[in-house]
């Protein structure tokens, strides 16, 4: 039942993006749409590649992690406005590549690419905090939750925080343990997709400015 909900939730952001296409032309949301499409496609491609073409699960998860990381990093890099803080994703990406290479060398025998996945989690959490810090400092944004980017970043932030420990342990899980604990990923994936839907369905430039309203009243 949860898995079915999870699959439906994977499709929902794609549907919402297409339904409200005009509202989502700007703000780099195309990258998130590409990520949602890729994520949804992987739900069908992964079993096919694993069972029919006998591709090792490690490579599949690794490939997914790398593509997911770079898509999200591109989005966050474009969203961070402070030029000094924009170096963080660049340096973080180099560190991530190092982790991926190290994982390929040392960890290839396991079913899940834990170092890369948890490294990705930590880095995306850091970028999300940097983004939110920028939002607090930006005086032009009065209600942060009226922006699409806020909901997208909150989706990552919650998802990657909640799955950090799961991904840290995932490479040591037996098949049964994997089944027992993987629902955590599914639940937070559903929450992430709901947040994406909220972001995609929000109207553009609908940030109410109480100070402008205040002056309009004078």
């Amino acid at each position, binding site marked *: 039942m949860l898995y079915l909900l999870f699959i439906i939730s994977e499709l929902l952001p794609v549907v919402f993006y297409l339904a409200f296409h005009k509202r989502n032309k700007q703000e780099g949301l195309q990258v998130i749409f590409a990520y949602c499409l890729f994520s949804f496609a992987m739900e069908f491609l992964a079993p096919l590649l694993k069972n029919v073409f006998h591709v090792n699960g490690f490579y599949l998860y690794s490939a997914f992690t790398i593509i997911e990381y770079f898509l999200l990093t591109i989005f966050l890099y474009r969203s961070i406005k402070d030029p000094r803080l924009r170096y963080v994703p660049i340096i973080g990406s180099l560190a991530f590549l190092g982790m991926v290479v190290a994982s390929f060398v040392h960890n290839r025998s396991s079913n899940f690419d834990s170092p890369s996945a948890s490294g990705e989690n930590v880095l995306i*959490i850091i970028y999300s*905090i940097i983004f*939110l810090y920028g*939002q*607090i400092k930006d005086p032009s*944004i*009065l*209600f*942060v*939750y009226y922006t699409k980017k806020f909901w997208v970043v*909150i989706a990552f*932030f*919650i998802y990657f*925080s*909640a*799955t*950090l*420990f*799961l991904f*840290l*342990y995932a490479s*040591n899980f037996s098949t049964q*343990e994997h089944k*027992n*604990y993987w629902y*955590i990923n599914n639940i937070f994936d559903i929450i992430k997709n709901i947040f994406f839907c909220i972001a995609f369905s929000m109207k553009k430039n609908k940030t109410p400015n*109480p*100070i402008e309203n*205040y*002056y309009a009243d*004078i």
Partner: protein
Amino acid sequence: MIILEATNPGSNVSLVLYFGTIGMLALTIGLIVFIIFHQRKVIRYQLRLQRMEQDQQKLLLNASIRLQEEERQRIAADLHDDAGPLLATARLYLNENLVNLDKTTQLQSIYNAKQIIDDTIQLIRNISHSLMPPTLKNFGLESAVNDLFQKISGSGSMNASSRFHDYRERLQAENELIIFRVIQELVNNILKHSNASFIHLTQNTSGDKFFIRLHHDGRGITQNDFNKLNKSNVGLGLKNIQSRLKVLHGKIFFEKDMSQTYYKVTIELIKEEEDKLREQE
């Protein structure tokens, strides 16, 4: 379910996993809530600032309206109390000519009427000069200030001097008038409240800034007093100074001299603002 799994004694991994996940989630949600509440706090603070600014604007506006009304009342009183009776008296003298046929008396009354009309002309000229000093209009700020200070010195109540170091090019006429009015107001305040024995005014420029400094040795105010008076309902003249300088994007600073002997008032204007205004015209 999570608690049941976590409390399973056989599973250390699940314990760390669940508590780790819950901990991370709690931190994340806490951070998000903090951001939202922090922003609300910032908005409230900004609104309060805007409201204070608006109140200040209202005070300045009221001050300038009240000052305008006072000025009108003063002119009305001058005309009514001085010019009116003088002209009425002149009329009486001239009227006397119609009834009195004695040549000597007629000449005397015409002479008296002429004297009174001369006084009236002088009075009206004074009123007109107080509205717009002709020296300022024709010869500029430097001459008008020198003229004002000479009059003060001439009265013998105070020694007043001024020195313009760098005033080769005149400012715009309206701006000169604004600055002159500010100087007049400051000098008036010094005359009324400070009990000073001298006032000295200097003008100079530094880079793109234009400075006028007034020194006196009486009782004065500091910037704190000025800010307090500006926010209160008293200190009409100071509010008027503030609103006049706002037009020029100028600043005013009240301070005690380094030697703690003199009070210093500095008017700071930006020359670029003047150039911009000139270009706009």
